[in-house]
């Protein structure tokens, strides 16, 4: 009975995830010419400093976006978790409402806001604060700004759900037994929020290093990351073995990050 209920889901995963993944692996191992399997493409990629720089760029962009998004999301998540306002439900919905819009649309929205003749630059120039437009679009800055905004709802949700264990009585008990506001924050709220914050960092980081739409559109061809490179190789150069190899390497990076996170989470929850 239990198996019967599991079966449709497992079948779906097998067809929609496992098989394509194996196929991807197969493509990545295809030689440039002829038949058979060989790790030639992997050797070429790993031996090429260009891809190491690309990996460095990707991880750096992911780290910057994750840190900024989580820093912005933590106060919002803490507020939403602790507020007793009757608007709480509405506010939570508002915080995650951006997820209802596609990434492409939101990226174009940011292009309108950040371009040389966009809202920000026009306003600042009209106010006489700047003489020439700030370089906010078609570069790394624009990519980071847009990615932070696009990925922040995930961070807010993680922080919010991670705070499920925090009860108002915990803060009250700490205050009664002698903790001032700062110590209630550092000794009670922050430790209880930590697992949610770590999940948020992981989630945003993983989504950021795998993204290609926003870096491609907002980067103006100047931001090179794994995602954009895979997209190029697959759709422009049509070098599928290379695209597949890069995808597999990105997947390996995910596996490493998630394993490290699992270790850390287990360590945190075992330490009383």
């Amino acid at each position, binding site marked *: 009975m239990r198996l019967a209920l599991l079966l449709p889901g497992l079948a779906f995963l097998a067809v929609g995830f496992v098989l394509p993944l194996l196929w991807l692996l197969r493509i990545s191992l295809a030689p440039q010419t002829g038949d058979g399997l060989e790790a030639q493409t992997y050797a070429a990629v790993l031996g090429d400093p260009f891809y190491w720089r690309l990996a460095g760029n990707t991880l750096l962009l992911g780290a910057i976006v994750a840190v900024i998004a989580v820093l912005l999301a933590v106060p919002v998540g803490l507020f939403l978790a602790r507020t007793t306002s009757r608007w709480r439900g509405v506010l939570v919905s508002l915080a995650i409402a951006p997820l209802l819009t596609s990434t492409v649309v939101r990226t174009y929205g940011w292009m309108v806001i950040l371009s040389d003749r966009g809202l920000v630059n026009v306003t600042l120039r009209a106010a006489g604060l700047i003489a020439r437009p700030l370089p906010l679009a078609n570069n790394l800055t624009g990519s980071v700004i847009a990615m932070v905004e696009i990925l922040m709802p995930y961070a807010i949700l993680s922080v919010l759900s991670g705070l499920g264990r925090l009860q108002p009585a915990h803060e009250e*008990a700490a*205050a*009664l037994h*002698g*903790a*001032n506001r700062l110590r209630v924050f550092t*000794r*009670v709220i922050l430790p209880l929020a930590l697992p949610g914050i770590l999940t948020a960092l992981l989630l945003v980081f993983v989504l950021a290093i795998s993204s290609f739409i926003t870096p491609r559109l907002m980067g103006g061809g100047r931001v090179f990351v794994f995602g954009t490179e895979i997209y190029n190789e697959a759709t422009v150069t049509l070098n599928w073995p290379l695209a597949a190899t890069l995808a597999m390497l990105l997947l390996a990076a995910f596996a490493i990050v998630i394993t490290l996170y699992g270790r850390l989470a287990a360590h945190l929850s075992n330490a*009383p």
Partner: protein
Amino acid sequence: MTDPYVAARDLVKRYGTLPPAVDHASFTLERGEMLALLGPSGCGKTTILRMIAGLVTPTSGSIRVAGQDVSALPVHRRNMGMVFQSYALLPHLSVADNVGFGLAMRGIPRAERRRRVQAALDLVKLGDKGGRRITQLSGGQQQRAAIARSLVIEPSLLLLDEPLSNLDATLRDELRGEIRDLQRRTGTTAIFVTHDQSEALAAADRIAVMSAGRIEQIGAPTDIFERPATRFVAGFIGGGTFLDGVAHEGIAEIPGIGPIRMTAVPPDGAVTLLLRPHRVEFVAPGAMPANVADGIVESVVYTGERVSTQVRVGEHRVTVNGFARGQQKLPGDAARLGWGEDDVVVIPRPTA
């Protein structure tokens, strides 16, 4: 005359235009005393406790503890301990670190802290559980740890907010006794909020009975039970059959029952009497109690040790609680009820 150790004067808490949650509540505690705030949910008892703790700001009124007005002190400077209904132990800390939390906040050196935490854990019989995580403790053990956390700081006042209501019945009685014992042994002054009359009667030195934001009566458990000041207090604690009638020269004429003689002498005029179910008996043949009434048995509830019988007497329904022994009455049986002159409680009329 020395000042009382704790004095709450005219505490009022209003939320918007609603009727006040707490309406001019005043009470005092002597050092080492345990006061129970007893009342139905929503009567304001928890609000009073939270105002004393500093978690709720009173609309008006003052709170003094040990000669100091604490109203202006922030929560963390009041040096009070509080035991929560939900225990409120910090899930990321060990049992020992939870108990030592207040000492750490007070900057007590590690060695002394460890010694005092161990002593507090021993006191609540958790001496070997200090290294455990909170989730590895049972509900009763968690509440004991919470009590240790509050006692270890040697609080000026210990506040307990329905500390037993999340525990099962057996554990509740056991822990009630333990809390009382600890409070006495440590000489801690305590205020204890509950909606359970038996908890209040068994554990407190004095009880303040509350209704709709007001304190109806404050007194020792026997005062509250034997000499209730209002019909609400009598009904909330113990209950029984209320009989309305007219008193004349110490004898009350109750329509449908007849004259009732009593030790207490009520003023002439309208009077309300209370018959406690355990003070009414079925009259044995030949016995001549001071008061008798004849009725018909309506229902019988048997709970093993005791039997509760409802008897219709005229338009009144009198409950008789007795130990289960001998032949039980059956619905429809005729029954003669009797009670003595000192088994009648006279409820004072509200003075307008």
